[in-house]
């Protein structure tokens, strides 16, 4: 990235010290802790992790969609001088869709089956803007065209079940973006789609972020999707961000053993039929988190130093939560020469 471009990319969305606590039958547990990241306008950052990493809880907390009374969120999420986490319920309703939007893995379950998709989008428009029905309908057809739906006028009269998975996800994206929010949270938006359709949807997200300056947080378990779509990657494990850097830096030389393990677990063309690296064990349950490094019980590089809680350490413009990072030269996705 040139310095001119970097200056242009002011932080649109700044999440600081996010923590999420959930009420369970066993009492309150902390599902997410010390999560901080920024996304510039027009940038796509990846939030990567496996099940139980806290990536979806992070997104739901930022949208204010976790059930009140059963959850507690601390920290801040600054957007245009306002803290989304400090908004009243009424303000939050207004902010959703206009300032921050979210799309989900299953477009079919996120659309209302008994209303035509065009009417669902028009409803969103009229919730945020004082416009006539005719103007909302025209805007609906425009946005459906923008997200690549052919013959948008007739498709807008379709019911969700009449659309394919790829078309439904396009409708969801149209609905999320119709009020031009500054931030889009995309939670596994292509996981339920076929791979040829996935490529189209990722290209669409790319195009929309570039054209409208939307800041996109792409939440996924798929490092390949991040490699192809994002500029920066945040690796999450057991409710914490364990590493943050430019995507190619992580793929060439990861600093955290978990990031390295994830990369090693992916089949690669040059090592066909060779054993893959498999991370032993499983993510600890929220109620029984290790007191020190949360990855330590599964880490092949753990020593006695890992028994203390790991602080986020800044390394140049990257950050990592591993006390041993400077001593390790971890394998990435390509062979590299030790410095």
């Amino acid at each position: 990235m040139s310095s001119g471009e970097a200056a242009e990319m002011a932080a649109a969305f700044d999440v600081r010290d996010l923590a999420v606590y959930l009420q369970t039958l066993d009492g309150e547990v902390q599902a997410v802790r010390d999560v901080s990241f920024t996304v510039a306008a027009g940038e796509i950052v990846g939030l990567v992790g496996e099940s139980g990493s806290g990536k979806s809880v992070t997104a739901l907390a930022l949208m204010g969609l976790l059930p009140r009374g059963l959850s507690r969120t601390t920290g801040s999420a600054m957007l245009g001088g306002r803290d989304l986490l400090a908004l009243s319920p009424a303000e939050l309703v207004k902010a959703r869709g206009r300032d921050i939007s979210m799309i989900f893995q299953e477009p079919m379950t996120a659309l209302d089956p008994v209303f035509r998709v065009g009417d669902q989008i028009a409803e969103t428009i009229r919730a945020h803007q004082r416009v006539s029905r005719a103007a909302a309908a025209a805007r609906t057809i425009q946005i459906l065209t923008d997200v690549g739906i052919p013959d948008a006028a007739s498709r807008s009269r379709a019911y969700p079940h009449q659309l394919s998975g790829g078309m439904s996800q396009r409708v969801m994206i149209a609905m999320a973006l119709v009020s031009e929010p500054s931030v889009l949270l995309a939670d596994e938006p292509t996981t339920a789609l076929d791979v040829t359709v996935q490529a189209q949807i990722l290209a669409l997200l790319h195009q929309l972020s570039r054209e409208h300056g939307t800041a996109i947080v792409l939440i996924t378990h798929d490092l390949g999707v991040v490699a192809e779509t994002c500029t920066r990657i945040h690796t999450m494990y057991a409710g914490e961000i364990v590493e943050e850097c430019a995507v190619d830096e992580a793929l060439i030389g990861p600093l955290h053993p978990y990031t390295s393990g994830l990369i090693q677990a992916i089949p690669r063309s040059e090592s066909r039929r060779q054993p893959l690296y498999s991370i032993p064990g499983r993510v600890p349950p929220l109620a029984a988190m290790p007191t020190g490094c949360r990855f330590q019980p599964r880490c092949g590089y753990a020593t006695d130093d890992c028994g203390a809680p790991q602080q986020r350490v800044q390394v140049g413009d990257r950050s990592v939560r591993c006390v041993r990072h400077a001593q390790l030269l971890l394998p990435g996705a390509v062979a590299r020469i030790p410095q």
Partner: protein
Amino acid sequence: MSGPRSGEPSPGPLLSVAGLEVHFQLPGAARALRAVDGVSFEIGRSEIFGLIGESGSGKSSIARAVMRLAPVSRGEIRLGGLRFDQLRGRQLRHERRRVQMIFQDPHESLDPRMTVRQSVAEPLRLSPETARHDIDARTLELLHLAGLDESHLERKPHTLSGGQKQRVNIARALALKPELLVCDEAVSALDVSVRAGIINLLLGLQQELGISVLFISHDLSIVAHLADRIGVLYLGRLAEVAPAESLTTRPRHPYTEALLAAEPASKPASHRMPRPPTVTGDIPSAAHPPSGCRFRTRCRYVQDRCAREVPDLRPMADGALVACHFAESLELTGRRA
């Protein structure tokens, strides 16, 4: 008549599927939906054959037909020379053990009330071939084969991780010494780090037991890693069948090229080839497939002929099978990383 058992292999392929069709009659529809519409392939002994396809390609229907869980509307399925699709009653029960299946959801396929020991020992208890006093030793042996140990014996499924549950399913499937393992999206529901362990396990079983595997997945990178040969399915028909290495480096069918182009590469930009134009549009409905070549509506090399003539799956000079009128003249791009 009894089929050959694992001790006395017959010559020729283990599994031979010829002209397979699986039809489903939808309510109110004039014509049956042909989920599988003329598919032929063979799997050799101790070969891993990968079958890749997107939704509606018919890959699960093929798996179910091979398992005798879906009706064979036309065509043949032979297992070591035996007409497996025509077996009935006692003979079917007897031969069926030779083919076992691993499903996508490791949780749904285990009885939540049974311990690991009970689940794995169940097929042994039901088989007249295992002596009572051998069951415990054999159960443990199967757990070890699947990468588990004594400590898992008395555990119930809900205390196991997804990967451990899938290992229990594999141990159970191996109990009656099958010759063919049918894996339908067997690693798709697992986390990346756990998935790697199951992939390693399947490769090890092929090497140690000489077992054959029909590995069905939508994920080309996994199929390419595991399989000796790959068949590419599109809307109920095979587009291409070739050894995994040549299929991924030098695809001959435009759909194979499109799949390779769409596959996200987990490599830094400097190590990725630029993406050729990806296909547009959605997969047509299997209820109304396009005339001629079924891929023509999304193919960037389409010609007039493609709408008129159905391309046969025909052999190329190097033995690859391709169903495209222009397979010899197209210069297609392989894997990008």
